[in-house]
């Protein structure tokens, strides 16, 4: 399904590049659409199914992934020249795991309720292919600042899809958003029911599918030629 898992080539040396040059900005918004980790590269689907029943956990999960991708990209990029090649995957994994544990500890300390809802899925960010994918494909070959931006961009691209899916699922499944009731009681009185099917994980997959369909029909670049 995936068209390309971009292994960005090492960029030519161009000193004096501004922090938010066109190229650097592209690192942020490219993963939101043209190179979205979920809808284009089809990575990280598993957690997208599990945490999107409600909007609040999805947002927290998205932020957690942004922090993990951004900082592990940054760290790996800083030490990329001294990482022994033979153990680079182990090193990447260790850095990711450490970042995830730190994020998890913070969630447990400051947003305990959400952290209980997310339960194992924060820990499972370690196994999210997006993180390792970006480290191997980008951070190992690029400077810290672009790597950091690339991490933020990919985290946001993942988070964007998570939030869209959770809006649909919480609205139709529970009649609320962020825990606040949106569909008024009077509608229920008229015989409206929450759709329990949409709370089931497979429905998240179908919603992701619809997002991919809409995105591809609007974005010519993503249409495969063969």
């Amino acid at each position, binding site marked *: 399904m995936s068209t390309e898992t971009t292994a960005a080539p090492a960029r030519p040396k161009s000193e004096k590049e501004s922090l938010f040059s066109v190229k650097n900005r592209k690192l942020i918004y490219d993963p939101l659409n043209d190179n979205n980790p979920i809808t284009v590269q089809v990575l990280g689907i598993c957690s997208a199914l599990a945490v999107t029943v409600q909007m609040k956990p999805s947002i927290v999960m998205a932020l957690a992934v942004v922090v993990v991708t951004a900082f592990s990209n940054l760290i790996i990029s800083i030490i990329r*020249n*001294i*990482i*022994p*090649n*033979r*153990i680079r995957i*182990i*090193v990447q994994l*260790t*850095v990711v795991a*450490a970042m995830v*544990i*730190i994020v998890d*500890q*913070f969630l*447990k*300390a*400051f947003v*305990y*309720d959400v952290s209980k809802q997310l339960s194992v899925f924060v820990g499972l960010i370690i196994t999210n292919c997006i993180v390792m994918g970006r480290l191997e494909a980008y951070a190992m070959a690029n400077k810290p600042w672009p790597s950091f931006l690339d991490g933020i961009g990919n985290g946001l691209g993942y988070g964007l899809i998570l939030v869209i899916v959770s809006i649909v699922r919480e609205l139709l499944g529970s009649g609320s958003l962020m825990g606040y009731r949106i569909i008024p009681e009077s509608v229920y009185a008229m015989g409206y029911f929450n759709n329990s099917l949409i709370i089931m994980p497979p429905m998240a997959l179908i919603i992701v599918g619809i997002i991919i369909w809409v995105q591809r029909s609007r974005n010519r670049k993503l249409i495969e030629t063969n």
Partner: protein
Amino acid sequence: MHKDSNKATFLFSSGMVVVIAIMLSVTSISLGPYQAKNIRIEKMKNILTSVSVHADTKETEKLFNQFITKQVVLNTKGEEVTGDIAAFDIDLKKEIDKAKTGNQDKQLFPLFICNKDGKSFYIIPVRGKGLWGPIWGYISLEGDMNTIYGASFGHKSETPGLGAEIETDKFQNEFTGKKIFDGSGKFVSVKVVKGGAKPDDLHGVDAVSGATVTSDGVTEMFKRTLGSYIPYFKKQKP
């Protein structure tokens, strides 16, 4: 030294492990107090739920102090123990383990006395075994120390849709109004009945279908834990 040499690889990995270990320890130690506070608040919340007080996280502590007027620690003879440990800090798991190692005489039982709308309620923490891990909960008894006013349950890893249903309001509400003593004053506890309890059964509630082990766990946890409080109840009753 080349970065891909064996020596560099060993040096790098040992260095990395040390740095990361320090990072994680610092985070864990510095955030520990916040996490402990969250766990305390959750416990308070669960205790309040058993007397139908639904608290917001922010006001839990306030409501807890307002409603829970007295905390008592009991020994096996039903006498109040003062001193060493507060009822709130008793670790039920450790107390249950005492029975396994032959120290059952030394078991301590926490009891929370709640005052709501001018009436007294007795809240008893319970803990038992589910199918996959521990289950626990809080049972509140009315002033007659016989009628169950409310119950709230929690679990570590019961199957969603089956054992995990003990956490739902539907299951918990069934306990309201049940009695733990029969007409002649004999302790009979409350049973979780497979296939459904009769509507007039004062000592039985419907089991969760498909969750036999968890349901039996609830029955066992009721009988054992409530049984330990009988001496105290007998003393309190005229």
